[in-house]
């Protein structure tokens, strides 16, 4: 089945999310939709899937124009979607999830679970998925959950499958397996739309590449194009993809963490006896699939977690058990993983956000009042220094793009007298141009002799920044390895396998 989108335009108020986008997907073809976060990829797919109605343009299947009022229509027409955030009911079994909305029933409306199980087994065997139809979805690993999503789409006879940022939650091995599955699906005649912003994946699997930027198609590229060419298309200018950094000049052991353990309110151990050291002027990158204790680690260092045991000493001073205020005063800078929740107050101005953690005294506050002129000067200086693209310092931080919001957070945290920098997911949801800038700032901080802990789930980022890499799995340290450790070794470690020889 050939899918054609013609001149799709979708507006949200004054914002044009999709501006006359056209693309076609042939049967058996993997068509990559490449673009940065906020370029309009997801909007386009939601239009295709009937979740949004396009303001202009049309969707055609084999030349016949379609009108989708909801996902039900799109599914009936043969379009399947593997969502970025899985659309699975966690407490249902695989079979129940697969049959939902498409149930076959027997006597008195009773569910025919047997038929659903058989369907899951059949598809699962056809593609070698190894999925148990009676497993409860929330107990399955993320990679398997994604296969359930694929089975769900295939069980509805999808002829066009849309994968929306499918690799964000996967380990590198799972990513490779997914690529193989996509190839296999394409060979069976399914047309595939693969939405991503990761260049490596695009080049590995795509037959054709369409690049969109700011809601418009800016060009097509062939899979043989280089990373730099693709990135330039995506961002609209030449970008430096590799971080320029010199070998580290190592100082003393600055941060010494021993047996750090975090038990959450439900009594589950989220971080289990983690020990490591970071020397002054060194970046330790913490790798791992999301949800393996990284959040707990960074928040424990900041004093944001309850139920922390063990010790974390910064320059000989114990951090565990101190208040957040005291830890910040000890010179710890923190870039939280979710800037909109923990990093910024969206309705505050940029200037106010820049002094959020310095509201306790000089220089910004004296005798209980904020020194506005000093704050203004400071904010304008930082705006220029950190290249924040904003109308002015009194713009609400929430109205900025992701990249610029993150630059505000980074500017605030780096403009203190730092003794330690903890950065969690410093470039998540940030455009390529800003990534480049933030990375260079982190490296500059390290070069000034500050120990840095960077948490990232993106191996590219880990590889770009790390002087040493620590891999976490289920709250435990799998190993601490040198920065030049091959990707596939890191991938296995992220799945919990210890490396053959460990290097501390």
């Amino acid at each position, binding site marked *: 089945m050939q899918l054609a989108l013609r001149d799709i335009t979708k507006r949200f108020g004054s914002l044009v999310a999709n501006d006359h986008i056209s693309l076609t997907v042939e049967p058996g073809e993997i068509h990559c939709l490449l673009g940065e976060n906020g370029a309009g990829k997801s909007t386009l797919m939601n239009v295709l899937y009937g979740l949004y109605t396009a303001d202009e343009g049309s969707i055609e299947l084999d030349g016949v124009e379609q009108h989708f009022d909801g996902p039900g229509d799109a599914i009936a027409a043969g379009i399947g979607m593997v969502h970025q955030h899985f*659309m699975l009911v966690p407490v249902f079994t695989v079979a129940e999830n697969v049959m939902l*909305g498409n149930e076959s029933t027997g006597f008195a409306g009773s569910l025919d679970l047997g038929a659903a199980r058989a369907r899951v087994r059949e598809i699962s065997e056809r593609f070698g998925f190894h999925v148990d139809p009676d497993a409860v979805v929330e107990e399955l690993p993320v990679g398997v959950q994604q296969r359930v999503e694929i089975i769900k789409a295939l069980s509805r006879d999808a002829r066009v499958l849309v994968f929306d940022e499918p690799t964000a939650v996967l380990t590198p091995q799972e990513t490779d397996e997914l690529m193989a599955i996509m190839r296999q699906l394409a060979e069976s005649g399914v047309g595939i739309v693969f939405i991503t912003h990761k260049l490596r994946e695009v080049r590995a699997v795509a037959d054709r590449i369409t690049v969109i930027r700011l809601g418009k198609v800016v060009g097509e590229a062939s899979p043989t194009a280089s990373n730099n060419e693709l990135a330039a298309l995506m961002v609209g200018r030449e970008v430096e993809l590799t971080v320029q950094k010199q070998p580290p000049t190592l100082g003393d052991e600055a941060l010494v963490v021993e047996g750090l353990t975090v038990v959450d309110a439900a009594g589950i151990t989220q971080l289990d006896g983690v020990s490591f050291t970071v020397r002054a002027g060194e970046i330790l990158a913490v790798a791992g699939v999301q949800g393996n204790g990284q959040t707990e680690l960074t928040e424990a260092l900041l004093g944001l977690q309850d139920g922390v045991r063990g010790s974390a000493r910064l320059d000989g001073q114990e951090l565990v058990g101190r208040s957040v205020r005291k830890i910040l005063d000890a010179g710890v800078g923190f870039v939280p993983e979710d800037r909109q929740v923990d990093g910024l107050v969206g309705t505050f101005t940029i200037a106010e956000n820049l002094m959020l953690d310095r509201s306790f005294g000089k220089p910004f506050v004296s005798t209980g009042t904020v020194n506005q002129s000093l704050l203004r000067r400071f904010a304008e200086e930082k705006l220029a220094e950190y290249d924040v693209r904003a109308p002015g310092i009194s713009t609400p931080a929430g109205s900025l793009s992701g990249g610029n919001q993150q630059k505000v957070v980074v500017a605030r945290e780096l403009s203190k007298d730092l003794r330690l920098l903890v950065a969690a997911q410093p470039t998540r949801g940030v455009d390529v141009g800003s990534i480049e800038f933030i990375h260079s700032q982190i490296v500059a901080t390290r070069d000034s002799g500050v120990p840095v802990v960077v948490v990232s789930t993106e191996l590219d980022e880990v590889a770009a920044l790390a002087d040493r890499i620590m891999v976490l799995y289920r709250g435990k340290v799998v190993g601490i390895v040198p920065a030049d450790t091959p990707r596939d070794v890191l991938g296995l470690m992220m799945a919990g396998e210890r490396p053959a020889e460990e290097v501390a």
Partner: protein
Amino acid sequence: MSTATPTVAETGGLASDSGASSSVPRKTPILLGVITVLLGAAVLLGSQDGDTTFRLATRADFVQLPNLVVPAEATALVAVVLMALVAAESTRRYVAGRRTPLWLISVYSVVAMFGFLSWAAAGGTVPVVGLLGGSLALAVPLVFGALGGVLGERVGVVNIAIDGQLLAGAFAAALVGSLAGSTWAGLLGAMAAGLLVALVLAVFAISYYVDQVIVGVVLNVLIIGITSFMFSQVLSENTEKLNSPPRFSTWDIPLLSDIPLIGPILFRQTPIVYLLYIAVAVVTYALYRTRWGLRLRAVGEHPKAADTVGIKVKATRYRTMLLAGAIAGLGGAFYTLVSVSQFNREMTGGAGYIALAAVIFGKWDPIRATLAALLFGFASNLQGVLSVLGSPVPSEFMLMLPYVVTIFAVAGLVGRSRPPAASGQPYKKG
């Protein structure tokens, strides 16, 4: 008393040990210990002489079971000792990091109740059939209300307005029943009234994203106001014509009603109770075994997932809420078509809130919620029976019983429960 004290000392010691981080709840052993001490203290301080008779049959029974006669004081003491043993076992399990199994709690409850009744009714007769059968009858509105609550929460709407639905049902049953001179017409009227209340809740909660708890509470107050106003301004003007509905008589189910003990309790009831059996069975089957139930649960757990497979989230919520309202309204009819054949202002006495507690105590499951509602019905009826028997416990104290049980049940024994993930959250597209 002497056997109970060490248990409490132990549990008290554990309670202060907040460092123990385990998922086994500490409250079960504590609760068991506290109840043991309370009963032990009551038995020792308020000594009771004489024998207690448990009457197991009614005069109409085909098979006449003999009466059970026990010495009051001795039986109560034995019960306290047994309870102390169970509490100690529960503590031992807690220390070993294990949960107290449900059967042990059940044994404890039966022993405790038997001991308490022996003591409280010393020198008198406990009509077991009347006690349990009456409990069932008193639980009827609670069970219907709880079913309405379970359906609502399972589809993602918190149904705080159960009390309003019960009250509106009671009112409509009285009015329609009187006008039509038919109990069945009254029943239909009650369902329609409950449905109407649910419709208002649904419109605000589903279409306008208003906070469901607030709408629900406001609705409850509104229904109290409307029915009280109608009662004093309209119904009392013409009680004969508007507020004297016919009552359901009891139907004996042939054969089943002749089973000793169980027959008279379960099968010598009014048709509304038989409707209840059917409702519980149908709702349970439909919720877990049908397409309708699967979709309903999906909408309550992950509405977006349901939407993306083509299930209409809002329509599903509307339909389910209306059904839930009709079921709860049916429960309201019990007040005016069975209990008393007249509507009175605020006659539900907050039963809807107890039904809501039964929903939570029953972990959003129709069967468990029914059992929870039956427990509350038992607590209410016990209070009535004991005050007739002239027990040593002050009657004001006994009036608190259903509510005390509610608090203990919800706070103490529920353990970790998991509501439907999207319960209380309005669904907005995009």
